[in-house]
């Protein structure tokens, strides 16, 4: 279920160093086992270099997983799933969000969550009123 996501993330995290270090340590057969499954494709546009790398397929307990990572220079621009387990539990991991209308309400509360960062904002806030009440 939701456990599928950390597995995928770990797979991505694990593949990146393999690719990044492969070129500088490419001394032959030793690195062959850890090299990515496909050759990176590089394209340049407007001064930045975009590199797309497909990772090798990793077998997880839910099935095979393969990701494609797009680098913008040295940074990761995006990560895309090329293969993911076709398993009912993975499908169920996509959460169903309930859509509602935004409401404004008042209520008796103990504390307030909300970006209350500035001093002026705090002075005007419900939280300040609660703190003053003690």
């Amino acid at each position: 279920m939701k456990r599928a996501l950390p597995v995928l993330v770990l797979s991505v995290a694990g593949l990146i160093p393999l690719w990044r270090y492969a070129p500088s340590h490419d001394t032959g057969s030793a690195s062959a086992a850890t090299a990515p499954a496909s050759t990176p494709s590089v394209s340049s546009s407007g001064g930045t270099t975009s590199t797309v790398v497909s990772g090798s397929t990793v077998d997880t307990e839910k099935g095979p997983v393969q990701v494609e990572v797009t680098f913008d220079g040295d940074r990761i621009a995006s990560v895309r799933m090329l293969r993911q387990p076709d398993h009912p539990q993975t499908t169920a991991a996509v959460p169903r969000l309930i859509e509602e209308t935004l409401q404004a309400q008042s209520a008796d509360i103990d504390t307030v969550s909300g970006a209350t960062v500035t001093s002026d904002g705090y002075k005007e806030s419900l939280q300040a009123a609660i703190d003053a009440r003690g």
Partner: protein
Amino acid sequence: MGRVEHVMGFPVSVRIDDEDFPGTPVDDLFAWLREVDARFSPFRPDSEVSRLDRGEVRAPSQGLREVLDLCEEYRIATGGAFDVRLPGRRLDPCAVVKGWSVQKGADLLSAAGATRFCLNAGGDVIASGGPWRVGVRHPEHADRLCTVLDVTDRAVATSARYERGDHILDGRSGRPATGLLSMTVVAPTLTEADAVATAAFALGREGAGWAAARENCEVFAVDADRRVLRSAGFPAAGAGGVAAA
């Protein structure tokens, strides 16, 4: 007992309901937060974060390594939308430092025997024991709420644009994240709730589903079209206790 102090650039309120709870652990809590500010603020030139950013720190402290590891975890998990190292900007791990340090501060109170307390750091809440009623500020009306939660042993964090404007950037584009007005996350710890709320906010509207898919996270998001997106398990208080106005 209750105490309010301004530290790390925001107000921190603590209310402890355990009878005769001593003041020393509360002093320790605020001393820890002041120490965190001195060590991790990117706005202080002599902080460890600023020195690291200038290349003057060879071996970051254990605490800073924890923070940077968390930042990297969320950068990867968001495909680069959450990124504390943006081109042309200073290293700014504030979003992670806040939740991480306030959670550690709350752990000091728990270790000293506090069982029922509520800690609010700039709108991010740790509710220990309970149940506690936590209101979520309405994104457009500072004196109103958009929902109320009943929580026990949970943390609640909200990221929003209403106080500091477009301060959260989408690392994928380098531009302000504008898909959401407000993003509230409920999680077991504030370390997670705060980081997930900020990272989801950076992702924009897709961040609501992304956060809801994380184990133990419940979300309440208001998108730019003023629609509410909430997870099925979000612990909203029963309608009986809320007076709609």
